[in-house]
Each structure stands twice: as C-alpha cells, then as structure tokens.
C-alpha cells in the first residue's frame, strides 16, 4: 500500500512537471504567432476592399460565381461546377491568414503550429499521468477539468488543421486562452492528486464528463469564430459603405477569413456539438437518477446546463428565422457560450449545489 502510494505521488509530480513544461512551450508558440502576425502585416493585401468595390461597380446583388476547384488532373475529365452565392450576400474573398502571404510570416506561423503540436503532446501526457496517478478518469475537480479542457480544445483545433480546414486564424487566440486557462488552473484551482468520493464512482463519470469537456472545448472554438465574425463583419460593412477602418483594424481584420466564412464555421461547429451537448445533459440526468434518486432536480448545475442548452437552441432557431441571421444570431451564440462558461466557473465557485463536492 505504501509502495503504491509512492508511485502515485511520483506520477502526480510528473504530471505537474509536464503541465508546466507545456505552458513553457505554449508560451513559445504564443511568441511565434505574434511574429507571424507582425511579419504578415508587411504585406499589401486590400482584397476585401477591392472585391467590394468591384461588386458595387457591377451592380452588386447579382452575386458572383466561382468555379469550384476539383482535384488535379481529374478536372479535365469532369465538367466544372460553377458556384454562386445567394443574391444579397456580400461576396468577398477570405483573407490570406495571419502570415499575410509573406514568406517570413508563414515560416513563423509554421513554427508556431509545430510548437503547439509539441505543447499539446506534452500537455496530453500531463493529463494521462494525472489519470494514472489517481487511477481514474482525471476529471474529479476543477484543476483536472481545466487541464483536460484546454487539451481537448487544442486537440480539436489540430484535428481541423490536419483535415486541411481553414482554421489557422484561430491559432493566436487559442494559444492565449490556453495559457490563461492553465495559469488559472495551476495557481488558483490546483488540487492535490487524489481519489474520488463515492458519489463520483460511476462509469457515467466517463461518459457524462468527457462529453461535457468536449462540448465546452469545441463550443469555445465556435465562440472564437463568432467573435471574429462580428469584428470582420463590421469591418466589411464599413468598407462596403465607403468608410475607412483604422490602420490596425485593417491590418488584422483584412487577414481573417471573410465574415461569411467565419459565420459558416461557427454555425457548423455549434450545430455539430449541439446534439452532443443534448446527450451530455441526458447522460447527466441518468447519472443523477442513479446517484440522487431523481433525474432532474433543478440543482444549479442542472439549471445552467439547461439554460445553456436553451440558449444554443435559440441560436439555431435564430439562424432559421428570417431577419435573425447574421449579427443577431451571433450575439445569441456568444450569450450561449457565456452561459456555458458561467456554468463551469460561476456555478462551481459562487453557487453551492450538489455538484460542488468536487473540491473546486
């Protein structure tokens, strides 16, 4: 028994070291991203403005058509498909990304991503070591929850990158928040490695908490997209109305994907996660039924999960309702994510309920 305890403590220490190391590497990645943005700012782009001008010159609303790119030589064999955006939507090209198409910027961007991959691997190791040290799912308290949360967020981002999705623009913001999250986790939320109280012993812990973490992490990516959409959208409207945005705003926003792309990205993310979030709540209800004798009892955590769920349902409805698309729906999406965050931090810290035995 003593021997086992010693190993556990060793593993816990290893986990802590790994988490701190990943923070160091994330910090390097953060600076590499900054370098990417700085070098990228030296390029002259102005494509958005050009596209918008051209649009108004040709009478606008007709909508422009583009040839969809097939793959390689097959293109010669098969008929080309022309795509056209719906009438009335702004049709501007995506920005070139943080690197602005400059070689140096791109190099730094690649370095940043490589560092992020390394940091992710180290951090994931930290989470696994923690799990081994306590011999259970590493989600017994807020510290463990937080380190897993940012690991999953970065993992989701890297997966999207690996699938060749246009997501490099998330990099800097993501790494910044990961550092923030880990900073809070290691300083104020830290809890020594230990086992769970009997109430948490259940395989529903694996199911319910893991999906909750995945939902939060991916909702977060969606929220970043929504936030940037709002900035980029006002930038585009300003340009379209003949205004001139500030120099800094231009430099940054010009390089982001088009507002429409960002909007679609967030919608897809949120829509993809919503069924999983629904499942998370139901799994929680089943667990509550087993543990506390009622599947729904309006415990603060349950209430806020419900509020978050309804808020996201609101957002999805808004998208399907004429007159609510675009910015209004985007605000709803941000409110919904705000609810998720409050459910995680706020409820655990400020409100006492049945869920607060997890030692914060």
């Amino acid at each position, binding site marked *: 028994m003593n021997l086992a*305890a010693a190993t556990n403590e060793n593993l816990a220490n290893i986990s802590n070291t790994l988490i701190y190391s990943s923070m160091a590497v994330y910090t390097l990645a953060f600076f590499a991203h900054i370098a990417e943005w700085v070098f990228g700012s030296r390029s002259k782009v102005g494509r958005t403005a050009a596209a918008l001008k051209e649009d108004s010159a040709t009478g606008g609303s007709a909508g422009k058509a583009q040839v969809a790119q097939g793959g390689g030589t097959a293109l010669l064999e098969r008929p080309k498909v022309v795509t056209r955006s719906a009438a009335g939507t702004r049709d501007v090209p995506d920005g070139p990304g943080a690197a602005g198409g400059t070689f140096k910027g791109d190099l730094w961007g690649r370095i940043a991503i490589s560092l992020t991959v390394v940091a992710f691997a180290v951090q994931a190791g930290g989470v696994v070591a923690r799990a081994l040290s306590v011999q259970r799912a590493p989600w017994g308290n807020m510290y463990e929850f937080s380190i897993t949360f940012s690991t999953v967020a970065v993992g989701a981002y890297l997966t999207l990158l690996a699938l060749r999705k246009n997501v490099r623009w998330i990099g800097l913001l993501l790494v910044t928040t990961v550092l923030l999250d880990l900073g809070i986790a290691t300083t104020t939320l830290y809890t020594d490695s230990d086992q769970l109280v009997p109430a948490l012993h259940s395989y529903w812990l694996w199911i319910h908490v893991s999906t909750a973490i995945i939902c939060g992490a991916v909702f977060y990516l969606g929220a970043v997209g929504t936030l940037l959409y709002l900035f980029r959208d006002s930038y585009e409207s300003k340009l379209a109305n003949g205004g001139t945005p500030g120099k800094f705003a231009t430099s940054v926003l010009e390089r982001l994907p088009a507002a429409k792309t960002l909007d679609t990205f967030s919608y897809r993310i949120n829509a993809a996660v919503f*069924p999983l979030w629904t499942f998370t709540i139901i799994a929680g209800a089943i667990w509550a039924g087993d543990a506390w004798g009622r599947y729904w009892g309006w415990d603060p955590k349950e209430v*806020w999960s419900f509020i978050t769920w309804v808020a996201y349902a609101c957002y999805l409805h808004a998208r399907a309702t004429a007159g609510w698309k675009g910015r209004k729906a985007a605000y*709803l999406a941000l409110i919904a994510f705000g609810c998720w965050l409050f459910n995680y931090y706020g409820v655990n810290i400020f409100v006492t309920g049945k869920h607060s035995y997890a030692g914060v």
Partner: protein
Amino acid sequence: MSNTNTTDERDLGRAGEQLSTAPREESATSVPAMGVIGWARWFWRQLTSMRVALILLFLLSLGAIPGSLIPQNSVDELKVQTFKETHTTVTPIYEKLQFFDVYSSVWFSAIYILLFISLIGCIVPRTGQFVGQLRGRPPGAPKKLTRLPAYTTWRTDAGPDQVREAALGILRRRRFRSHTVGDAVSAEKGYLRETGNLLFHIALIVMLVAFAGGQLFKSEGGKLVVEGDGFANTITQYDDFKSGSLFDNDDLAPFSFDLQDFVGTYERGGPQRGTPRTYEARVTYSEGADGETKKKVIEVNKPLDVDGTKVYLNAHGYAPVVSVKDGRGKEVYRTAVPLLPIDNNVTSTGAIKVMDGYKDRNGKKSQLGFQAFFVPTFAGDGQGTMFSQYPGLDYPVLALNGYHGSLGVDSGLPQNVYQLDTSKMKEFKDSNGDQLKKRLRPGETMKLPDGAGSITFESVEEWASFQISRQPASGWALTGAIAAIAGLAGSLFIQRRRVWVRAVRGTDGVTVVEMAGLGRSESAKLPEELGDLAAALHTVAPTAPDPDPDPDPDPAPETEPGQPAEESAEGAEK
C-alpha cells in the same frame, strides 16, 4: 435591382419552394382584420411563428436563472428558511414573485406552456405539409439553371432522351427521388432532415409530458435503518414522506428489506485523510408480501430497484448500543440509538430516552434522558476536544450527561427524537454537586448517583439512511430524450437538396446538358455532390468534340450577360 433579377428570383423561389416546412415569417406589424376572429387568428399566427418561438425560448432560459441563484423550496427548504431570516427586505418581494418556487411558479409555467402550445401549433401543420411533400414530387426545373448556387454544363453527342434516361438512373441509384418534367429531370434527397426535425420537436413534447407526469405521481421518502433492523414499504414506516399531487397510497410497491451490515472505508493518510472511499449497505430484501429473500449491496450510485421503486443510500452514521439498569438493578433498556453526524469526521449527537419501565431506588416510576455525544475516533485524554479525528471506528468514545423526571413525551406534541426536552427534568449531580458527565469506552459503565442505577455503553452499530423514491414515466422521458437526439442529428447533419438535369438539342444538333443543385443553406457539399453526379453522367454522355473553332466556347442556349466570369480558384469553396 433590375427587373430581370426579380423574375429570376421568383423563378428560383418556386424551385426552392417546400424545401422545408419552416413557417414563413410574416411581418409583425401587419394589422389584423377587425373582429374577434380576426384578432384570434392574428394571435394564433403570432404564437406559432418562429419569431415568437425564439422569444419564448429566450424567456425560458432567462426565467430559469433566478432559480439557480436563490434557494429553492423544492431543493432545500432549510436553506430557504435561512435565506428568509437573513434577507428580510427582499423576502416579501421574492415571495410575491414566487422566487422561492421558480420552477413551479405561475410565470415560469406560463412561459413553457405557451412555448409548448406554440410548438404543437407549429408541428401539426408542418407535419401535414411534409406528408404532402412526400406524396408530391420534386418541382420542375427553373428556367435559368445558371442562377442556382451550383451549376455545370457541357455538350454531348448523346441524344437528350438518352441523357435524361441516364441521369434518372444515376440519381435513383443514389436514392434521389426523381422524375422527368418536360425537358429536365428533377430530383430531391434528404427528406430525413425534415423527419428528424419533426421527430425532435415531438420528442420534446413527450419529454415534457413524461416529466410533468413524473412530478404529479411521484413519491419520495426517507428512512433511517440501524444494522439488523428493516423497513417495509408502507407510509407509516417512513421517517418523512413527500408525494406528487396525484399520488395514491396504493401506488407504493409492496416490498421490504433488512440492513444486514454497513461498511464504510475512508482515506487513511495524505491530505485527503478521512475522505470517504466506499459506502456499502448490505441488505436482504423480498418483493411482494412474502416473496423470496434476495441479497443486494446498495452503494451510492447503485440503488436497489424493486418494480420501479428505487432505494438509494443517502447517508450513514453510528448508533451506540446502550443498556440501562434501574435502581433495583434490573435492565430496563437496551437499544442501538442512532446519532446524527455534525461534521465530516462523524462527530455525532443525539438523545437517549428511557421512557418505560424505569423505577428509582424507592420503586418510584420515572423517566431518564441522556444527552449523547459520540466520536468514532477520540483525540485522546487531555486533548481537550470532543470532536472526532477520523470518520472510521478507531477509538470510539461516548460522552453522556443524564437527567431524570418527565421526558414530556406524553404531552401529545411531536418530539424530535434527537433532542432532549429538559424542561421537566432534573440533572443528575456528582458528589461535588456538578452535573454528572462521563466519557465512556465500549463496555464501560456510568453509575448514576444515589443508587439510581447505571448506564452502559455496550457496543457500536452503524446506521444507514435510505431514500425510497418512485418516479413514474421516467422510461418515457428517456425514450423521448433518445428520440430527441436522433432527430436532432438527422435535422442538423442531413442536407435537403434538389438537383435538376436539363438536356436540350441545340440548333447545331448537339445536345446541351445543364445540371444545377439547390440546398437550404449554402454548403460546400452541394457543388461537390453535383460534380460527382456530373462526372457520372459525363461517362455516359461525354463531351462532344468542339466543331466550332470560335474562341467563345459557351454553348448554353440561354446565355445572358450575367454569365459567370471564371475567377481564379483562390476564393473557391474549399
């Protein structure tokens, strides 16, 4: 906007019609026709509109907030009481607003009832419409296919009939519902999206009804059982009992159980010393009036389930066994007395009440009462503390002080079994005239002064408290929940889209093929799929060699100025 554009859009509108059953938005400002019926119709149309559904959903989430920040009667009545005592100014306001019962308040109920009326008012016509769509066929091709979100064209030597035939075959093989209208094939796929969406919304209603039913018919009660004792499921056996307003006593499932043994283990060392590790209540139970006896270990997450009634392990504590001898040396009392824990290390308090059979030295009837303080692990003599150091039974000590007189149990008022009413009792004094108290180890005895008898701390039993609850219709709620997820997945992941293939013989005798696709939302998948379909059709109807050396290769007979300018591939869908 030019005139041609508007016609175009109207043309497109017809092609895109009925691609969903979402209600059309009507302007909120449209003034209803006069008269009661006019207003009623206007009101109904508003209530079942998407905008109002959106507002009600938003209100629902807003309305749920106060219940999470203010203590709720349904969750913890004690907390509500404390809150009311400390917040005297806001309490009357909160009470008016039913803020202590948010989830059963008039206003919260109003929100969700309106939402669900709106939902039903939305689902019924949508279902009808959808059935109509399933019966009907995808609409014919719009005049100008070039206006659609995804479009492709080529010229082929194959005849128009042949092309349409081939297209029909390809589309059907890919499970498009397709048919030929005039010179074009119309096809549609993805009806599961609508099915899923309707299923989801119907499942929400099922869940609500199941939840409401569960609340109305539920029953829930608590029972504390000492090791060796048992419980039979009748109302009189409960320590406390709550039930829904439509609950009937006959709804209680007949069964009984005995607590054989309770096992609790705790962390031995480290910073989390004393944190519980396992709680196990080992019981034997029998179903029905005289069913066979079965064994079961009830744990925190593993209730005993008898015919839909679940028995949960709720809490545990210690019950010291004490015996009392009266003035003549006769044992008049021997019971395990459950004491209530007051901290995490199970420091416990309670009362021992000897009501019948006790006679003092002179043979006079009397009653005895003892205030009991118990620690499973004593800090040690001289440590000056009577708080437990550890929740396990390492060094049990029972501290007692005694009274004699009348316990006041005959007054007819209900009494708390854990508290002693000493108003009609006198303290036992020691030889110095101080109150008699003593700390006992198991097996030790405290003598009462003046030959009044003695009390012995025999041993320690453990008790467990159980919550016995029945919530009907939870199976329905679960079914609804699963259906909701399935429906959602269908609704969100499946695209409903249409494809048209037009084949017309051009003036030069060569066939012009045009294909176009339309979905509810712009998606990268749509042009991809159209490309695949076109490639498949292209193998049957390959591009004809261009007989015309003219540098403008555009073959479309309906070419117009809006013809797409081919752009660099940069901005193309990725």
